């Protein structure tokens, strides 16, 4: 079903071909951006409803179920509410910076969508240093968070902003280093080449896909990348800077109406884009998981969307399950656990790359044992070491008398 796979690209070529010559380049650029601007905010809208319903089910209650069939038009009601709300700006607030902060948060996040391939040949720009571009625009979001917190002239906003920036900076290192482990194997910063390096199948009977997640360093790297991604987008259990019960929504407490909706949109879009990068790096991008003919019928963009939706579901699941981390627990986790694990992962990638040249019988198993052992050992040792250094005693109870 080649046609269904390439349907969007075919549509775009038809439309651009029908335009007059002068308008062809701007028209092509516009038609590359328009699907991103249309699909991902819609996905955001559906995710807000799905999140509330799934969280509700995890917490043994129904989610919103009044608006639309089973509550699935709740996003439209929320949208109308935010648009019609009064836009309050504190009197002492720094008006220009207060106004620019949501814009400065949303723009880099939207830029990051342009280098990722969402299907076979479906990318907006092909950059030689595409991965670096992605992380560069991610760095722009930290400044926007600070702008939001500082311009509100509010102690809680400032505290939340500083905590959020500290958290984002701390988790940027494990995020980048776990992505670097993929770049080491593939040898290129171009997301298209990273996806192309994961095609094909291996293993007995050719059933296991060649994705990076099915290698020991890929598994560890994927786990570390997803944890760092949750921390980068301030998602539970790392959402201390914006939790309602802790710091009254932190750095966007003074925003109301459409500006708050822009922050919300930027946060979720950031979550989607970093999950998409995780899919490109570790889960084989738009490749199908098995070589059966039935799976080849499903178009490549459908596989990508399916993987994205699964990851979003896992994020919502984790949100409903794990308690929030305190700020010192977050920072300890980033610097004392995740950074050493990502550095060890880099070493394991180098050993794996070297061991790929082994050719004797049982080489694959030996590779897995060595690399897996090199990862599991420090994981257990670090875990035990960090927990024992906290002097946990037996739990004591004090009763009111």
């Amino acid at each position, binding site marked *: 079903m080649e046609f269904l796979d390439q349907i969007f690209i075919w549509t775009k070529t038809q439309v651009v071909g029908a335009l007059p010559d002068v308008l062809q380049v701007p028209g092509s650029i516009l038609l590359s951006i328009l699907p991103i601007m249309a699909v991902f905010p819609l996905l955001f809208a559906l995710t807000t409803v799905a999140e509330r319903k799934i969280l509700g089910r995890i917490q043994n209650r129904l989610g919103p179920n009044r608006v639309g069939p089973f509550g699935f038009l709740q996003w439209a009601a929320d949208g109308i509410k935010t648009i019609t709300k009064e836009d309050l700006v504190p009197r002492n607030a*720094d008006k*220009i*910076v207060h106004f620019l902060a949501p814009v400065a948060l949303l723009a880099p996040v939207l830029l990051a969508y342009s280098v990722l391939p969402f299907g076979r040949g479906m990318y907006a720009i092909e*950059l*030689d*240093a595409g991965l*670096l*571009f992605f*992380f*560069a*625009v*991610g*760095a*722009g979001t*930290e*400044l926007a968070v*600070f*702008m939001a917190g*500082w311009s509100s002239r509010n102690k809680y906003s*400032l505290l939340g902003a*500083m905590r959020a*920036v500290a958290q984002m*900076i701390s988790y*940027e290192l494990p995020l980048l280093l776990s992505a670097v482990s993929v770049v080491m194997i593939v*040898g*290129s*910063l171009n997301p298209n080449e990273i996806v192309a390096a994961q095609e094909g199948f291996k293993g007995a009977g050719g059933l296991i896909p060649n994705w990076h997640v099915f290698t020991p360093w890929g598994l560890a790297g994927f786990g570390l990348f997803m944890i760092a991604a949750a921390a980068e987008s301030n998602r539970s259990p790392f959402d201390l800077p914006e939790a309602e019960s802790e710091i009254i929504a932190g750095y966007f407490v003074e925003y109301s109406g459409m500006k708050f909706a822009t922050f919300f949109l930027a946060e979720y879009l950031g979550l989607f884009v970093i999950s998409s990068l995780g899919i490109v790096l570790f889960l084989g991008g738009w490749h199908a998981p098995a070589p059966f003919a039935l799976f080849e019928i499903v178009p490549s963009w459908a596989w990508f969307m399916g993987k994205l939706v699964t990851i979003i579901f896992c994020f919502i699941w984790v949100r409903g399950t794990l308690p929030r981390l305190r700020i010192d627990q977050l920072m300890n986790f980033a610097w004392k656990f995740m950074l050493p694990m990502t550095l060890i992962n880099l070493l394991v990638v180098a050993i794996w790359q070297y061991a790929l040249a082994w050719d004797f019988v049982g080489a694959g198993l030996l590779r897995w044992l060595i690399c897996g052992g090199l990862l599991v050992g420090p994981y257990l040792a670090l875990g035990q070491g960090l927990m024992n250094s906290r002097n946990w005693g037996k739990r004591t109870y004090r009763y009111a008398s």
Partner: protein
Amino acid sequence: MDIAFIIIAALTFVSALAAISLRNLVHCALSVAVTFVGLALLYLKLGAEFVGFAQIVVYVGAVAILIVFAILLTKSSETSNEPRYSRGAIWSGVVAAVAFAGLVAAISASQVSLTSSPVAPSASVEKIGQDLMSKYVLPLEAIGLLLTAALIGAVIIAMKEKPAEGDEQ
């Protein structure tokens, strides 16, 4: 001198001027961040992708945040009432103009501007990586050593001081 260069240069120039003349210190820091972005755009226009994106990651993502944190934690954010121009403003303007003229003369007479159509070397990421690991490995390791020393220094400054044993009884 095409239109893209004029726009990028104007952006950089205006934000640099704003960075030195705005009243509010955090506004100045944000203008400095915009100047860094302008520089990165200039690098991108010259075709140096890696340097341009690395400029954004390092300068906007780390240095600008360092600057704003330093302002926040050390100075009150109220605007000061000092006059805008200091007392020796005219003489410093003359010195700056002389220095600028000297720089322009030096650059115009140098090798770079004499070649008529310089062949741009390929700046692909792979070539940069190979060069860093073969020709420039010594500066790379020296920079790594410098950064490690800075990191250790920062940790030592920020570490909680243990109370000296003999001092307090």
